[in-house]
């Protein structure tokens, strides 16, 4: 019994040793070897935004990696001696060059992130932020304003201030603060508008990181508002067909001559609302009637395009309703599903063709889509017919069998 207890005790001790070793291994060694961190933790003078998962710390770069000094001594005066390379905290104006010491050096970055760009500082000084910083503005964003100072993480990390889902919130910190922005002649409602836009809803509510955040249109380090000429190109990055159709339409020249912004005139910019077929109509929600009035070519085109679209959508909705009915009845829906999928693709294409402003092209595509929708409806009808044949067949069979049994009973009785 005594030897058994000794064995148990040894096993427990070994398990404890293993778990202690794992914890120690998991812990970043700089917490035990770097005197800057050891002292600053002891005296409770760690930076407010410090995060142990900071990407620099994870790569083994501790305080001295940026601030200089000697992390091997616990003597504060020696550790923060200028002669030992201590540079302290950079001013806002110094920050881009401060970070650029490593981030603009291919040789340095190759050791840590060989694929990362090294032109961020150069890009930054082409941005409005960089230009203003150069002019002595101490409020504009520099590296730290967006990336933080001590909790920097890769933009792919969901916790990073530069992760696509967090970018609007990061920009909002300054750009939605009327007090902070009052000396700059720009609005502060961008975030508010963005959150209700189709892009904002997709990004912030649906967590669709494919949807654009601020930097996708305005740039990252070279953040500059897109000019009049480039708005459509920015939208065209994702909405390529819309841009191509628009660019080859007669409307492009008219917009250019009138100095109207290509996409944003109808769709807005930060508050891009979800599109509807009502936009290209002459009704209340029409965007065409802003410039066109009854009797002109544009007005007639809007009426025709809207009619083609609504006719197609009506057929499409009818087909979709039939598909739901088929699903509910438990019948084969695969062919209907495929026909409807093709109709849906055609519907997307037809809606894109709206940007040609050519009723004939829209009509042609809408007719093609309608045929697909009708095909789906006809397939669904066949399935429904089949369903009722089975149901009534079963009913009739039951009736006949019942009559047969009853008649047989009477026949046997009459024979007796």
């Amino acid at each position, binding site marked *: 019994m005594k030897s058994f207890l000794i064995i148990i005790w040894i096993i427990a001790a070994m398990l404890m040793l293993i778990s202690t070793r794992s914890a120690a291994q998991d812990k970043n060694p700089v917490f035990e070897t770097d005197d800057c961190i050891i002292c600053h933790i002891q005296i409770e003078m760690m930076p407010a935004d410090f995060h142990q998962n900071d990407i620099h710390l994870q790569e083994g770069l501790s305080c001295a990696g940026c601030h200089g000094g000697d992390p091997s001594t616990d003597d504060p005066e020696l550790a923060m001696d200028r002669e030992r390379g201590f540079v302290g905290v950079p001013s806002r104006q110094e920050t881009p060059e401060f970070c650029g010491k490593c981030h603009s050096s291919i040789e340095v970055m190759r050791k840590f992130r060989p694929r990362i760009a090294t032109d961020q500082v150069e890009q930054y000084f082409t941005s409005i932020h960089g230009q203003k910083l150069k002019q002595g503005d101490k409020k504009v964003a520099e590296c730290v304003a967006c990336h933080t100072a001590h909790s920097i993480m890769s933009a792919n990390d969901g916790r990073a201030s530069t992760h696509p889902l967090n970018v609007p919130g990061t920009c909002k910190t300054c750009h939605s603060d009327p007090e902070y922005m009052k000396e700059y002649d720009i609005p502060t409602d961008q975030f508010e508008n963005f959150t209700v836009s189709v892009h904002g809803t997709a990004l912030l509510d649906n967590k*669709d*990181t*494919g*949807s654009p955040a601020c930097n996708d249109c305005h740039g990252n380090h070279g953040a500059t508002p897109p000019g009049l000429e480039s708005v459509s190109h920015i939208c*065209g*990055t*994702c*909405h*390529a*067909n819309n841009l191509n159709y628009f660019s080859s339409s007669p409307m492009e020249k008219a917009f250019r001559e009138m100095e109207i912004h290509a996409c944003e005139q109808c769709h807005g910019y930060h508050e891009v609302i979800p599109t509807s077929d009502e936009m290209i109509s002459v009704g209340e929600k029409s965007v065409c009637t802003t410039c066109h009035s009854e009797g002109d070519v544009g007005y007639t085109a809007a009426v025709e395009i809207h009619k083609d679209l609504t006719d197609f959508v009506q057929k499409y909705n009818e087909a979709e309703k039939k598909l739901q009915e088929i699903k509910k009845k438990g019948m*084969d*829906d*695969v062919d209907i*599903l*495929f026909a409807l*999928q*093709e109709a849906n*693709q055609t519907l*997307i*294409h037809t809606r*894109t063709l709206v940007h040609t402003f050519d009723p004939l092209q829209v009509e042609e595509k809408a007719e093609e889509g309608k045929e697909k929708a009708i095909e789906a409806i006809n397939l669904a009808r066949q399935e429904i017919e*089949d369903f009722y044949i089975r149901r009534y*067949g079963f009913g*009739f*069979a039951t*009736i*006949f*069998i*019942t*009559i*047969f049994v*009853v*008649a*047989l009973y*009477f*026949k046997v009785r*009459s024979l007796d």
Partner: protein
Amino acid sequence: MKTSRRKFLNIALGTSFFGWIVSVIYPIFTYLKPPKIPEAVVNSIKAGTASDFPANSGKIVKFGRVPVLVIKTVEGNFRAFAGTCTHLDCIVQYRDDLKQIWCACHNGLYDLRGINVSGPPPRPLEEFAVDVQNDEIFITKKLS
């Protein structure tokens, strides 16, 4: 009176017997020629003949309930990927000018390994195995 009752009984018996025969034979007949029903799980399909498939082109085929994009590269190799974009489920297509897979909805591009290379798609396309046997193209679900 008795004759007409017997006659009625015989008619009822004959008619219902005929109905009973039909209700027995019809299911047998439909069993021999079954109605179309969706396959529960599809693991492999035939996607046409390889020699009829032009090089540098692609087509969408049905793989059970999902569309699959089959591509024949310029070099004559076959590849197959899930036909729906990983962004918003639009149907993708092969662009012979770009030699890439393209989603028209938001200009998403995938390379010929199905990897998302530009635009909003967040993930690569699911790849299917393609096997050509006796000039027949077989598409099979890859084991994860």
